[in-house]
Structures are given as C-alpha cells and as structure tokens.
C-alpha cells in the first residue's frame, strides 16, 4: 500500500502520577506549548489534559485566517514570527498544514478608516512586513467579485493589502501538533477533565483531574474560551475577560472565485475561499457574554446582507453550515500571557479573543521557553496581566470597546 495507516499520535498510557509539566487544554495553544516543551526544551514528561477531544473548542471553529498587520509594535512582531513559522512547522511536523498564502484585503470604506489602516500599514512596513494601501480600482482588479459601486451602505474606498497573510488549515495544525508532540513523548489525555490545581507555599504542587491526581511543579492553563473560568476556579484570579459567542458559516463549495481573504470592518464581515471551495465567512461577536456556542438567526441574516452588497454574486450561492465558538475578550483586544505571578509555576495564556489561531504556534514556542526557564521571554513581556490594574491598555484597537453585559 502506498500509505501506511498508523496512528498519528500514540494512544496515551494511563495518566501518570507525576509530570514535569501539565497543560490544561488540548487546543492549539496547549498542543503547541507541549510540542515545544518536549522538542526544544527536552522536557520528557509533559501531559496535555483535554476535557473533550483535541481541537474541540476554538481550534476547530475558527476560520483559519493568518496575518501580521496588527496595530501596535508589541503585537505585530509576535504575529510576524507566527507567519514565518507555518512553513517551518510543516517541515518539522512532516504534516501538510496547507498554508494558502493568498494575502489579505482589509476593505476600507471611508477617509477616516483609511487613516486607521495607514497606521497599520506604516507600522507593518516599519517592521519589515509587507502591507500596502490600495484604492478602489486596484481592489477591484485584484478581486473582481467585489462591488465598488457607490450605491451600497458602505462603498469601498480602498483596502489594506497584506500579501504575506492567508489561510492555514486549522484542523491540520491541531493534528500536526498532536502528532509532533506525541512523537516527542508528550502524553495527550483526551476525555480527561482537570478539576483543580493544588498550591503549596505559593507554588504549584499538582493538578487534580477526573482520572487522578498529578504531582507537578508547572501547569499552564490554555483552554481558550474556558480559560478565564478555569483560572478563576483553580487559581482564584479574576481576569478582565468577557466571553462572547462568535459565529461563522460556510457556503456550499464553488470553483475558485475569491483570490484573497477579504474583510470589512464596516460591514462586519470577512470572506475567504477554503481549499475545498467553500466561502467561509463571519466576523463580529454576539453583543452579550455567554458560553453557549449557539447560533443566532440574526447573525446569519446579517452576514447574508453584508455579503450580498460587498460580493453580490454570492447572492446566488447557498450557506450550508453555520456554527459558533467562544471568544474570550480582554478590554484592549490583546491577550494575557503571564506566569509565576502570583503563584509560582502557574502559567496562563488566554484572552486571545478571535486571534488565537494565527498566534498559536509562536505562542507555544515562547510559552514553552517561559515555562522551561521560568523567565518571561522579551516578546511576551508586554502581555502581562498587571497592565490592567495599572490602567495601561495595549492600544491594539483604536475604538473604545466594552464587552461587559451592562454597557
């Protein structure tokens, strides 16, 4: 037979009573951290504890867009490194992550938005990341399906074009990282729920799970939308995080139509064509916090209205699947990555909102270094938790945002 069918990742042994490090959450960030801990830092006994199956949460629900055209100098280098990692990881893992480097077009619909985009473009260029501003005619040339007429709610004024971005197959990243982590000896325990973290003398002593207790001095909580709740319950930290449902959908598959990831802040919509030919689309979050991952009728209707104006040919295409995931939003739309504060050996990685996919590999790499050495890598320093008590937000977004239920 041409292909050997053997397991991509090993069937784990029984949960051991001692690990060098335990990672709560078998999503992208957790698996990536485990992979790098084992591969780069030679940590042999690493366990990933996943309540459901790997990739159950945001890892399997995102729309797989990658880009490095963020707003601030703190964020952008991280995403830049993340973009550069996809080909490297594909090689390392010997697993095709299907990076489709199609480039991103962020549509701009007004003069004011042009200014905001210019800040991103100039910041990117200053950091050596390719990004340009285009006018409407140029945009139309690149993406003929776009409607640049004036008679729509938000006429297209131009776009921010970011060639290095694109789409990566999100499931492949989950499986590839699981494969790589497992090959380096990481135990992946699915269907295993962590229930507590024991702390002795201000330091992590162990992790309690439904399958038994583990002695360990290092634990990372990296459970996507569920992190804030777990961190609160297990470490007693109340984080400035609101969890909101974010929805996405795909159309039936089509022959090639869209050549880029197209997005619009004004319409609250992005659309890209997957390798299978589906148009994947989504954008904004539900305006109220909840953990349900339920869809809403209003949302899919809104997407249809927006797409119908922006990409009118899609009116003749059918939606076939609509789903929801969780976005854990911080007040400044930038994540929280911290460790050893206030509990030694306890690390947290959360608040990624809807940026968790594009950042997973690079964050895993640096979080692993953090956990292995105990010293926070320079690139992660700006993302510490205490910035909120110091009232120093990151400025990743220009507009004032407020995700609490009351405002």
């Amino acid at each position: 037979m041409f292909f050997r069918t053997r397991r991509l990742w090993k069937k784990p042994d029984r949960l051991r009573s001692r690990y060098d490090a335990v990672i709560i959450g078998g999503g992208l960030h957790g698996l990536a951290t485990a992979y790098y801990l084992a591969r780069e830092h030679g940590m042999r006994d690493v366990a990933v504890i996943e309540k459901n199956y790997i990739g159950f949460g945001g890892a399997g629900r995102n729309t797989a867009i990658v880009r490095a055209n963020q707003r601030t100098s703190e964020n952008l280098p991280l995403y830049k490194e993340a973009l550069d990692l996809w080909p490297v990881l594909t090689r390392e893992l010997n697993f095709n992550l299907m990076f489709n480097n199609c480039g991103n077009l962020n549509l701009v619909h007004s003069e004011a938005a042009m200014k905001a985009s210019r800040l991103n473009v100039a910041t990117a260029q200053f950091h050596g990341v390719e990004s340009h501003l285009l006018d409407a005619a140029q945009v139309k040339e690149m993406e003929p399906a776009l409607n640049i007429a004036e008679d729509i709610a938000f006429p297209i004024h131009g776009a921010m074009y970011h060639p290095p971005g694109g789409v990566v197959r999100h499931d492949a990243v989950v499986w590839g990282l699981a494969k790589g982590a497992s090959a380096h000896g990481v135990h992946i325990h699915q269907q295993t729920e962590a229930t507590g973290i024991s702390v002795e003398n201000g330091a992590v002593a162990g992790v309690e799970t439904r399958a038994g207790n583990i002695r360990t001095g290092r634990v990372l909580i990296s459970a996507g939308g569920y992190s804030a709740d777990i961190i609160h319950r297990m470490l007693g930290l109340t984080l400035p995080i609101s969890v909101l449902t974010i929805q996405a959908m795909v159309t039936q598959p089509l022959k090639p139509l869209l050549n880029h990831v197209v997005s619009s802040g004004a319409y609250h919509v992005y659309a890209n064509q997957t390798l299978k030919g589906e148009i994947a689309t989504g954008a904004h979050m539900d305006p109220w916090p909840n953990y349900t991952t339920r869809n809403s009728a209003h949302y899919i209707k809104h997407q249809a209205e927006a797409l119908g104006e922006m990409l009118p040919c899609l009116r003749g295409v059918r939606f076939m699947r609509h789903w929801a995931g969780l976005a854990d939003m911080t007040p400044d739309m930038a994540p929280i990555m911290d460790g050893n504060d206030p509990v030694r050996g306890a690390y947290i990685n959360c608040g990624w909102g809807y940026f968790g996919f594009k950042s997973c590999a690079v964050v895993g790499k640096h979080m692993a270094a953090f956990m292995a050495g105990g010293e926070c890598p320079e690139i992660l320093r700006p993302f510490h938790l205490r910035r909120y008590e110091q009232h120093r937000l990151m400025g990743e977004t220009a507009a004032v945002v407020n995700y609490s239920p009351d405002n």
Partner: protein
Amino acid sequence: MSRLEHLPTLRIDPSLTLPLHYRGKTRYGVSGDTVATALFADGVRIFGRSLKYHRPRGLYSLDGECANTTMAVDGVPNVRTETTPLVSGMRVAVQNVMGFPEFDVMGFMDRLSPFMPAGFYYRILHKPAMIWPLALKSIRKAAGLGKISPDFRTIGTFEERYLHADVCVVGGGAAGMSAALAAAESGLRVILLEARPWLGGCWDYRSGADSDALPLYERSRELAREVADEPRIRVFCRTPMIGAYNDNLVTAVQSGGEDEGFTERYIEIRAQSVVVATGCIERPLLFENNDRPGVMQVGCAHRLARTYGILPGKTAVFSVGHDMGLEAAVDLSELGVEVLCVADAREDGQHPGLVRALTERGIPLLRGWVAARAFGKRHVKKAAVTTVEGTVRREFACDLLVASAGLSPVTGPLTVAGARLAYDVHTGYFLPEALPCGVHAAGRLLGWNDPGAAEASGRLAGVRAAADCGKTVDSDAAEAALAAHPGPESGCKLVTAPVAGKKAFVCFDEDATVKNVRQAIDMGFDVPELIKRFAAVGLGPGQGGIPGHNLPLLAARYRADTAPPRPTTVRSPLVPALIAAYAGAQRDMCKRTPLHRLQERDGGVFRRTGVWKRARYFSDDTECREEILAVRNGVGMLDASTLGKFRIHGPDALNALQRVYVSDMRKVGSDRVKYSAMCNDDGCVIDDGVAVKIGENDYYFTTSTGRAGATVEWIRYHTRFDEWDFHLVNLTDALGVINLAGPDARTVLESITDADVSNEAFPFAGYRTFRVDGWIPVRAMRLGFVGELSFELHAPSSFMPALWDRVAEAGKPHGIRNFGMEAQNVLRMEKGHVILGQESEQRTNLLDLGLGFLWDRSKTDAATVGAVALEQAEDDPDRLTLVGIEMDDPDRPAKDGSVIVDDRIRGYVCTLRRSVTLNRAVGMALVEAPLSAPGTHLEIFEDDCNGQRLKAKVVPMPFYDPEGKRMKG
C-alpha cells in the same frame, strides 16, 4: 418517455408540457415535475460527476440530501434539482464535469483512489516545499462543485416575513397535520411548514399495507382538506425549516410558485410551542458502487412512479431493511417493473401481508440478504446480493437496484433546537432523550410507523403543545389513544454489506468510503466528529444528510465500542439556503438627519458615520478649500444634528452628572454652557460635550455622535447602586443642530431673530433660548469648535428644514456656504480642538489629551468614573501625549496615520493638513512623552515612503488664533 397516467397519486399534469434547456437541446417536462424528474423522464441518468473521483451520479433519494443531482440552473450553482420545481424555460447545466456527463475526462481519478486514503492531502504535497504552491493551485481547481461568475447577479424578488404563532408544526405529513389540527381545535393559531409543494409526507404516494383500510394517499388528502378548512392553521408549503434558535424561533425559506410575487421568502416564526414531525429518510445502504446511477432509495423509485408517473427502471433488484421496501416492490411490480428479487437484511419481522403479496407475484424474498455490489460502468447493469455474513452470493442482471438499509429519523430540526439524542437499541434510531422546553416530536420520527399510531402521536404532540400555550387539555386521553396502536418496530441494524468498502460510499458529496472511515479510525481519529473532519464525511453540500447517522454507527461497529454511538452534530441551515434568501429585502437601516434632503440638494457627498449618514464634502475638492475659506472669512453652516442630546432631570440629576463627568458640574450655570468630558474606569476619554442648566434640577447636555447611543446606559450603569432619583431623556433624534460659524455669523443671526445676540448680551459660552422669525424655537449656544464666532442652534427636528432654509436665505448676502465634516475637521484641527477617536484611541486618557484641566480632583465624594485611574496615570512617564506638529516642508503634509519613528515607532499622526488659512502644514500627533516638548524634531514614516522619512517638529497649539479672539469676539 410516456408517463403512467390515471394514477390517483400523481402530482403532475401530463397534458401540460414545459420546456427546459439542457446540453444544447430543448427538452420537455410536464407541469408538476421537478427539474430532476423532468430530466429523468427525458432519459437523463447521469446528473453530474462526483467531487474527487468524478464518478457518474444520478437520482438517489429525490429529496436532495446529497450533491448527486445538484446542477447549475439559470446560472445559479448547486441547485438541488430533485426538489426544485420545473419552471418553463429553465437552463440547466451539469457541474464538475470535464467533457460530458457520460465521458468525463477526469474519470480516471476513480482508479487513483488507492493513492487517496483518508486525509492523504495532509501527508503529501508538502515535500519538497516548492511543490505545495503548485499543488494548491490544482487542488483549488479540482475542488468545489458549482461555478459562479464574479459578475453574476441573482434575479428575483426576495422577501422576508416575521410571523407569530402559538404552535409551529414542522412537517406536513400525517403526524404533522394531526398535530396542527389538535392544536388548532383548542383554539390556537398554528403555522404548518412543509418542504414539499403539498401536504401528505410519505402517505401521499402510498396505497398502504392493508387493503381493508382507506389507502394512505386518500387518508392524507382527507387530512389535508381538514387542515385547509381549519382557519386557525396557516400552511406554508415549499417551505423547509432551516434553523431553530433560542426561545422557539424557527426560520424557514419559502420558494415562490410561478404565480406568486416572490422568488424566495425568508421567514422567522416565533412560536410558544414547536412540534417537529419531519418523519424519516432512508438510511443509505453501504455496498460496493452504491453510488452508481440506477441505484436509488426505495422512496425515490416509488415516488418516481406514483407521484411523477415515471417507471424508475425495467428490471429491478431490491435490497431493503424495512417494510416500506417490500411495499414498494409489490407496488412497482404492479405498475410494470419486473422485480427479480427482494433482499431483506432482516431475518424476520416482515409484515405478513407484504410477504404474501410478494409470494403471489412470484417475487423471491431473500431474508437476511443484502446487496453487495452494483455492476456497470455508467449505469447499473447487474447487481450482486449476498447473505449478510457474505457467505452466499447471487447475481442478477438488472437496470435498477433499489436499496436502503432502513430508516433514519430526520432529527436535525430537533438538534438545532437544542435536543440531545441517544441511540435507541430497539429502533436503531438516534432518538431525542431530552427535548428543550416547548419542543415536541411526533410521528415516524419517533418510530411510529403504524398509520394509526402516526396520527395519534401527532395528535398527542398537538395536545402537549396546546398545554404549553396554557390550554387545559386531556393529554391522558391522547396518550391512551396512542397506546392503543402498535408501538415502534424493531429497526434493521445493518449499516454496511459484508464488503471491503473500497467503493462503498458513506458520503457521496466528498467521495468518502467505508474504507476511508476505517483508515481514519486506524490513524487515531476515534471520535465521529474527528473522523468526519479527517476523512471528510458529511462536510459537502448535502452536509450530514446522507452520512449523518451511518458514520457513527459504522465507527461504533468497527471499533467494537461498548459505549452507545453518538450522532455527529447537525447544524443549520438544515437545507442549504440562498444568501439572497437570507438577505431578504436587504434594507439599509442607517439614520438620516432632518436636514439630509436639503444637504443632498446642495450637493452633499455623504459618508456613513456610525449609524448616521453625514455630509463630508459639498464639492469635488476633497481639501474643501472653499468651505474652509467661507467659515474663516465669511460665514458657513454645518448640520450637526447627529450630536447626542440629552435632558437629565430630577433631584439627583446633578449627582449623576458629577459621577460621569470629570469636572465639577455644580458650576454648570443656566446662561453658560460648560465643556467637560467623560472617562471610563481606565481614565480614557470616551466622550466630550457641553452641559447647561435649563431649570431646577434640570440639565441639557450634548455628547459626541458616536456616544449618543450608549450614554443613557452608561449613566444608568454607573449609578446603579445609588438609588438616585433622576430621569434621563435621549433627545438626539428629537432635536436637530445647525452650527452657524464665521465672522459674519452674528450679522446673519441678527437678521432672523429679535433676540439680542451681541457679544455683550450673548457672550462666548453663553446659552440663550429665543425664536427665529418669531416662530422657530431655538436653543442657542456660543461655541467655537471651528475657531470662529459661532452659534450652535438646537431646534426641534420638525422645525429644522425651515430653520436651515431661513439661515441659508439670510446668509446669502454674506456668501454663506454649507460646510461638511472634512472642512470642520480641518478648521477645528487648526484650532487645536480634538475629535475623540481621531486624536484619541482606546488607551488615551484625559491627561494625554491635555484636557487635565477639566478634571476636578476636589469632588472625591462624587466617585467620578475614571478618577482613580487618572491619579495613577499622573506619575506615569510612559504614555502617549497629544502634541501639535508642523511639517518642515509646508507643501508636504504627512498623511493621517503615518508613524513617528526613530529606531522604533514612537507615535503617530492623528490629523495633519496643509492649512489654507495658515499656509503651513500642521496637525496633531500622539507621541511618547519624551518627544512631546515643543521644538522636538520628529521623523515621520509614511507607508510606501521607500525609506524617505518626512521631517517635522513639535509646536505649540492652537495653530490658529491662539488667543481665541475670533471665537470669543
């Protein structure tokens, strides 16, 4: 092909032919046909080619669960021809075919299947790295079924309806109709949704197992008449349910008939109670070449004959697992199909009457047998059947293989509504184990196959739904009535024939085989949800329709699970729905000011600003030279109606203002406005505006346009524990605003009012109320946002057009001009006035903006929102500070959004223009504090500057009229 005529069950009118165009020829169907039945009647057997292997595909279920028969119709891709009514003149084209449906150039792909095991694309094509971009291109081309042109425009009328009902019944079969009748009889308003063009479900074409009772098709027509005669029931046919959401919100899409005024209609129904009676589809039987044209499900073959008058084949082999299969075999043989044998996967449990009928016709019934393989390259020519263990095998030459393993309930509507399903060993179905509040299930969906039981279970659900709506009902009687009928039969458990499964397709849409599923499991994908993704099962255009229940059963069997199987997730839309249908009427919901039309008349170019449309320019000149000069040298008028406008009154009104504004609001007077700002808990400025006292405990205040919507909640939220007594009224839409600005503004105003508006009587920051022309009530404020003498005139919206015309007329001798947002933007920038969101970002606090003077630290008792953060920020050296900057080259203004750099990014340009007033290029920027001292040289990095940095320096603000003589004069 001639049709069977005079069958009482026909839904076509053979005398009325309708043309359609396919492959360059005009063909004819008849009235009542679907696109697929018309083509089938015309001899078409291959409707398209499959995604990966380009295998020929044909009619399978006649309900459009898979992509086998999706075609392009009138340019729209992926149309489910099995369910789309034929309309005269349709243009139909095959999809995913290179060449002809019979001879597809890509047909060789089928032989490559050994090289394409589950998830093969993850394991190849990335080594060496350079081949991936090429592979990616070919993958994209090969993938996708339908084709759409970027210029394609959907023609038709799309509507939306928002309906309310007490009970919404989904599914218009016997159970659904019974439920609707039972609910309506208790006086409730009922909506009945049916996907097909008529009511009746699977009874519509069946004569019934027993000849002594009324034939099922007659009984269903009888029920349909009762439904039609019941005025409380609104029936929507051709209206499949597509989604269910919280609190019994059901969505559906209705297809318009030829005579109706719409193409498709998006429907949202809010119901107190929902009854799901969607019946069953057939469980696909998995055997080699189970996708070959000529292999079809029982209902498909049966309905082709009974509903459309088309014989599905000449010589047939049946392989079934339920009595409806036997019934169809008997009936089709009666209608002229030669039935060679009926293989039934069940060893026993067949209805004796049906067994007898088969025997009478000499049709052998093979109990415990199943189809193993279909032969024939493009169409079935021969079928092999074996015992379920695979020990004995027989072959039959035939052109039709009617195959299905059993029945699967259509549980999608229940699961999207939030029901949990569990495997039921008796029926072999996934049945609801817990239903959400106000959701009920009925009929064959629950295994009630007996005709009497189907009706009784429908009535029971209707009665329970009535109870949800507060009606007193006798549900015990309804339960007893149901109990009197035979219960659900034991269902066939067989999923796959005893075959290797190399070409036994679990999922037609993505060409996933039984073998692929086993491979995925062998590679560690043990959860159906993961197998689904890795082996691509049920992710195609038809979603889980075909493989949804087979996959978990197959996986459970292969893994020899002890735990009961779990179904994979079903998601909305339950049937694929057009984006145009979802969009519906596509109304643009933006707000227009009372002066919108007048500004349009004057040539305004509008932009969306939040929820509003505002005029940005009044000429083609985007630098707005004329507009700016008019304000600086004469007089201009601006529509500022989008400003947030509020009244707060009551004993604690002042307390509330003290809480949210940073200033001491006790100083707000009745003839002077006070400018202040609101901060959030981080001290960041979220709003600025003016407040004035208009009576005892009564204030009028303005907010920025963007905050108008949030202000009431903001104040309520931040006073929520105080039990303060105040009332807050949002007057934003009730009042409009004109900003009359320029050195001649006073002269203009004087000419239209008797009030004394001299500088002495109405000084800067003053507030007065008076009438214009003796009748238009105006609240006037002396402000100076644009740096000139200006009057902000607030008046009730209904008076605004009159006020605008009056001001325009009075200003004519002074050359008054409209000015828009961009002119205002430059004018206020020259004056050093900020616009929040432009000179501030999310993290910019009051001190950063240089507005610290507004903050009154003495009012600690007010617990001013943001004060704590501001105190902390005072000693923070690492913040961005707003400064004025001037370009070294006055003719080369940096563009807004450029970054200020040295070896790293140190800030950015907020607004910067070449000022026609000053002949300098000036603007504002947010820079790190160490760069904020006047005289500091800055380097600006603009996008695509090729390393050529622009030079500027920090200068004091304001740039224009620093003493404020013009504004205050």
